């Protein structure tokens, strides 16, 4: 588990237009090649899949995770629909430990 790496990954994608474009262009390749911090195989796989539910369950910072999720899924999924899906995905896990 490396919540630090996951948070750093999401922050980079969220805050840089170039990184956001590269990641949304090919999430699997971007996640495979990313070397900005430590990631477990499980975390890398969740980032490759844009799997916000899994990332939430692993303790990704929820504020950062929502911004990241919105950036990488809208407009593929409408925002209201994504909000609903996100809530359901998070509810499965309750409130995981987010400390790094």
């Amino acid at each position, binding site marked *: 588990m490396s919540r*630090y790496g996951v*948070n*750093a990954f999401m*922050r980079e994608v*969220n*805050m*840089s*237009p170039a990184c956001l474009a590269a990641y949304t262009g090919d999430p699997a390749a971007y996640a495979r090649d990313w070397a900005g911090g430590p990631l477990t195989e499980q975390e890398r796989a969740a980032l490759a899949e844009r799997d916000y539910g899994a990332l*939430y369950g692993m303790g990704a*910072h*929820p*504020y*950062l*995770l*929502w*911004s990241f*999720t*919105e*950036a990488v899924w809208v407009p593929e999924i409408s925002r209201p629909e994504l*909000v609903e899906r*996100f*809530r359901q995905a*998070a*509810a499965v896990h*309750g*409130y995981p430990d*987010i*400390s*790094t």
Partner: protein
Amino acid sequence: MAEIVGVYGTTHNPLLWRARGDDLAATRAGFERLRVRLAAARPDAVVVVATDHLTQWFYDTMPAFLVGKAPLVPATFWNEEREFGLPYRELRGDAELGRELLGGGIERGVDFAASDAFRADHSVLLPLLYLTPELEVPVVPVFTNCMAPPLPSAARFFRVGEVLREALEDSPVERRVAVIASGHLATEVGGPRHFAGSPSRAFDERAVEWVASGDVDGALGELTYKRLTEAGNVSHQFLNFLVAMGVAGGKPALSAEGAVSRFATSPFFEWAP
């Protein structure tokens, strides 16, 4: 010496910026009321106590409390323009006053970190867009860690407020200073209760009552990390109002309101200077 001329607390919910609707009438009125009060106080500088959202201050170097002492404070990041439609602005900073707060804090046992290159996010800019829309008053941003646990204790937030007052009042710098605490009531982002209005109206009412009555002991006795998470997973930014309560010497607020809307309930507080 510097003189405190006003102490305020507001929401910084960035979703309010482009939201429209009748349910926001009380929220708009809350901002407007504080804007008028702040203008009447005629501050030369404004200290904004706020929590960056893992934008400039991140897990690579996470201060507990930090004073920005820069002559220029760029505000908002690209992702906030994208996500919330917020503008980018360059705020004037009051570096001289920032140095006074830093030194005065350290003399009194609050070892602030410091930054000469502070870039603010919406936690600083959004309250200013409503309270000082011309953005003409120079700013000293004070960062607090309400995002990356373990957080400082509620008692420490209150103490930081007391020390800010002492440091200002003992400073030889001539300034009329307003303090704005930027925070939340019960709020949830990125959790199971995400974007479903206030996650805990009961907490909102209780928290407004602590502020209204100046019940510092009640607030400190209850505001653990766990309790705040139960109220909503980013409710910890309520702790910034403990700083304002400390600046105000624990007195009851002049006014304290939680404006209900489809978003998290918006706090609007004012304390006597």
